[in-house]
Structure formats: structure tokens, C-alpha cells
């Protein structure tokens, strides 16, 4: 019988710890499919963050690192500089990348490190139980913003993709979502382009993936997708933020 659907080679056949309804599974799969399609499993090295995807090193089949909180871009820099022929990616959430790791991601981008970052934004700290993230929307209720995020006290959410797009070293930055099938297909295309940019030596690439957290948002997966569309996409506009990949490396 012909196999029409199988696990990508770049994902190991192991149970994951993700909550029911979480979109990390989709995003893992997209990254793995891209690694398979580009035929780079043998030379890819991934860096997992601290947060919900801390155990990603158990799921991807390539060689993996577990980095300290926020430091994945620095770890990836060390790997790539000492192994320039390898493909290096970081997989980071919004707490990891946009709060404690802001310096590391900004400087990896501005140096034009030849690495790819998959940035999963779900507007909340998931692993620690739903506290305010740097990306938490104004008015959003979390464990540490029980009255809703008050921008007078807690400031405003960071638009990471727009911020990094101002940096010359970044060559490809796009924000995507995995809330619908067409968006999942677009997300995969973006991830593939980001890895291809690295293979072509174009510079730093980052794909921001809008993601849901049913557990900590207190919504069903279906309601979560609606919340993402109604609240996140208006603030975090989808689309290509920067693309200089057609320029000479």
C-alpha cells in the first residue's frame, strides 16, 4: 500500500509533552518537513530554548543543544562560527526571545549570523503557567496581569519582526500564523525560504509564528484560533517584513 502520510525523518517517533490543542506540534512538523525537503538532516544542528519547547531536543532527529533562557542565538552563533558548513537553527518562544534574550536575538540579527530562528509567539509564558510575556496584548489577562495588561504599568507588547527588520544583517523576516490550513501552508513556505536563505549565505533569517495556548488562555483550541484572529493578527500583522534574499550575499 502506498504511504501517503508519514512522520518527517527530521522528527523522532516519540510522544511529546505538549498540551492538547497546542500548535507547537504543527510548527515542529513544518520545520521537520523543511529539513527533509532540503535534504539537510545530516548537517543541521538545532538549539532548543527554555519554555514550553525546552524539550524540543528530544523531538528533532538532528543534533540538538538545550540553551540557557534566552541565550539560544548566542549558542547558535558559537555553533555556526565553529561549523560554518552546518545549518543551525534556534526554536524559541516569546518569553525566551523577546524578554530575557532580547540582546542575544538583536545582536545575532545585526551581525547577520547565518542562522535561522523559528520564533513562536503565543502572547504568554506557557511553561511557568501563564504569566505576562513581552508580547502579551494590552488588556490581556494573565496570571501576572490579573486585571488585564495595563500599558501604563507594564508598557506595550513588542513587535519583534518589525523591530528586527530595521537591522541590516537580517535578510529574511516574515510573520506567519498556523490558525488555518492556508496559513499553515504559507508558514511552511516561509520557513523553507528562511532555511534556504541560510544555505545561500544571505544572513540572518527569522520566522515569527503566531501560535495559540489554549491551556493558559483558558479557551478551547477552536476558541483560541478565533482569539488569535480577533486579537493577535490585528496587532501582529502577518506578512513579509524584510526580504533581501534576492541581493548578492
Amino acid at each position, binding site marked *: 500500500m502506498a504511504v501517503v502520510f508519514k512522520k518527517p525523518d527530521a522528527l523522532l517517533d516519540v510522544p511529546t509533552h505538549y498540551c492538547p490543542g497546542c500548535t507547537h506540534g504543527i510548527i515542529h512538523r513544518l520545520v521537520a518537513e523543511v529539513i527533509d525537503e532540503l535534504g539537510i538532516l545530516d548537517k543541521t544542528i538545532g538549539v532548543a530554548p527554555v519554555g514550553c519547547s525546552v524539550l524540543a*531536543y528530544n523531538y528533532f532527529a538532528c543534533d*540538538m543543544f538545550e540553551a540557557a533562557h534566552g541565550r539560544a542565538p548566542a549558542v547558535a*552563533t558559537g555553533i555556526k*562560527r565553529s*561549523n560554518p558548513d552546518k545549518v543551525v537553527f534556534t526554536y524559541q518562544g516569546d518569553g525566551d526571545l523577546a524578554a530575557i534574550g532580547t540582546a542575544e536575538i538583536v545582536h545575532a540579527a545585526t551581525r547577520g549570523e547565518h542562522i535561522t530562528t523559528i520564533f513562536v509567539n503565543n502572547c504568554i509564558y506557557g511553561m511557568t503557567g501563564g504569566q505576562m510575556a513581552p508580547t502579551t496584548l494590552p488588556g490581556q489577562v494573565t496570571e501576572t496581569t490579573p486585571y488585564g495588561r495595563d500599558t501604563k504599568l507594564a508598557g506595550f507588547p513588542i513587535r519583534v519582526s518589525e523591530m528586527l527588520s530595521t537591522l541590516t544583517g537580517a535578510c529574511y523576516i516574515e510573520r506567519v500564523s498556523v490558525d488555518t490550513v492556508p496559513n499553515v501552508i504559507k508558514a511552511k513556505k516561509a520557513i523553507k525560504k528562511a532555511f534556504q536563505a541560510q544555505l545561500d549565505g544571505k544572513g540572518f533569517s527569522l520566522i515569527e509564528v503566531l501560535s495559540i495556548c489554549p491551556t493558559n488562555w483558558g479557551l478551547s483550541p477552536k476558541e483560541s484560533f478565533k482569539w488569535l484572529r480577533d486579537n493577535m493578527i490585528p496587532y501582529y500583522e502577518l506578512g513579509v517584513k524584510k526580504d533581501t534574499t534576492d541581493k548578492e550575499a
Partner: protein
Amino acid sequence: MGEKVLMKGNEAIGEAAIRANCKCFFGYPITPQTELAAYMSRKMPKIGRVFLQAESEIAAINMVYGAAGSGVRSMTSSSSPGISLKSEGISYIAGAELPCVICNIVRGGPGLGSIQPAQSDYFMATKAGGHGDFSMPVLAPASIQEMVDLIQDAFDIADEYRTPCMIMGDGMLGQMMEPVEFKERKPKEPSKDSWAANGLNGRKTHNIINSLYLQSELLEEHNIKLQQKYAAIKEKEVRYELYKCDRENDLIIVAYGTTSRICKNVIKEAEKDGINLGLIRPITLWPFPFEAFEKTVNKTKHGYLSVEMSCGQMVYDVKLAANGRCPVDFYGRTGGMIPEPNDIYSKVKEIIGGAK
């Protein structure tokens, strides 16, 4: 035999690291170690190796984590406040069992402190290099020649035991110039293929560089394994110098680094007055050379005097070593001040009183 050249301490460290086959150096400017990063920035690109100025000491140590984890000899350096920042990364490196060399050219603290020489990071280096149950070898040279020799040892020790290894010099050693000879030595570099995460390249299972063990049983097992490694380091890697300790002494001074050189002058002065002093000079601060005390505890009339450029840190290890068998005294200067021979000698005379 190589020829002797006159070199500044910080630059000599860089040259020694290059000769020890260090492939990557990740630095960040901080006085009084900056010349080391500058030297590496000049030399490394010309021989096809990596120099990168990181955005912070935190990033630099995490770059070392990445490079070392992919099996490449790597190094970073800083001075006291920067080492505080690196302590997070050092803990992860120890937990993930990665070999690397970290150089601390110590300045006065706490806080921003001063930029003058100090030995006040002894506790941080030997007791609290970062959070969690780990230790790391700490080598403390007393001259630029010894610093050069120990850099190569540090890389070899790091590789053999898969551990971070620290070279700790004070600001004086970093800044002064001395003649130095680079001995022809072949670095001992074991294969790292079994554990390094450097791409599958046909390997069947993936390698993971990690310090997370969510199951307590597994973390305990891991930590016990680390302790076994530390036990082996304690057994095989302890280094120290005994100076004038083969005689009956009135007092034995314990000092390392620059301070030990000042103390040697005190010992020579005292001899003229008929006072016999010995010196224990720890070269490995961790593991501490307890054995040197077993050899000398019965050959000192007034016990030990720990002399440090700190408010008294190593003296706690000296007390452990003496274990109540003899008196232990302390003399130190702090904040970037360097002990004067006359002041040390006055302290010696105060201790031995009318003994001579």
C-alpha cells in the same frame, strides 16, 4: 626549545591559547584583560580561526557553550564583574560536561570595584562558579611563563575531564611584561565525536548537549557522576609549590599568584634575621592542595599565615587543611591594594612574637 620573548601577560595568554590549538575565542572588553581580546582579534582571523566580540559576557560564554558543544576548542576571558555574568553559562557548561577554558584576570570588587589587581574572586572561582552542584579546576599562575604553561594544561585538563577550566590571574599578571618561552608541546585532544553535537554526518542517533534532567533520580545520578569526575581531578591534578618547606620553620606562609612572589621576598628578608619561613603556593586553587599541609603541618612552629589580596578567602581552605592542628592567621590587602613586604613581615613577627 622556543626562544624567549618579552610579552605582556594578557597577550601571552592569547599566544599560548593559539598554540594550544584554541579554535574559537569569544570576548568582550573589560579592564584589565582587554589586551587578550585585542591580541586574539589580530591573530585568529589570520590563521583561519574564530575571533568574535560578543554583545556581552553572557553572550560570549554562551557562544563558548555552542562551539565547545560542537567539539571545538574554545575560550573566553574576562575580569571579575564579567565573570559574575558568565557564571550562568559556566554552570550550564559544567552541567552539560563541555570542555573549555575561561580566563579571569581579577580586579577589585565587589560591584564595579576597581581596575587594580585583586584576588577577591577566590570564593567565586573555587566555591561558587555558578548555581548547582559542580566544581571546576582553577589554575593560578604566579608568573607570565607559568601562565603560558598552564594555559596549555588548562585546555588538556578541560578536554580530558570534559569540564570548564579556569585560569585565574590577578590584574598584575595580565598587565605586566616578562620574558616568556613558548615550549613546543603537542596538545592532547581526545576525539569528541561520541558526544559532540556537530551534525549527524551519517551517525544513527542524535547527540544532545544538555543540562536538563527533569527526573530527580536522573539528575542525582548525573551529579554523582560529576562528583566521581571531580574525585579523579582531585586525585590526579593537584598542583602546588613548596618553597623552603624542607626545614623546621617558624611559620609557613600560604599564598598564590602575585602575592606568592612578594612573600618569597619576605622569606629572604626574614632569613637575614634568622627567622625561617616556608611557603606553600597553591597552583590549583581547586582542587586545593591539602596534601601540601599534610607534608608540612609538623614542620611549622606557629602554623600557617594566609596572605591574600582579599579580605580573607583562601584562609578558610587553609583552616580546613590545618584542621585545628595548628594556628592559622591571615594578612590581606583589598580593593586593588597590594601587600607590602614590610607589612607582611610585621605580621609574621607579630605571630611568632619572641620565638626568635
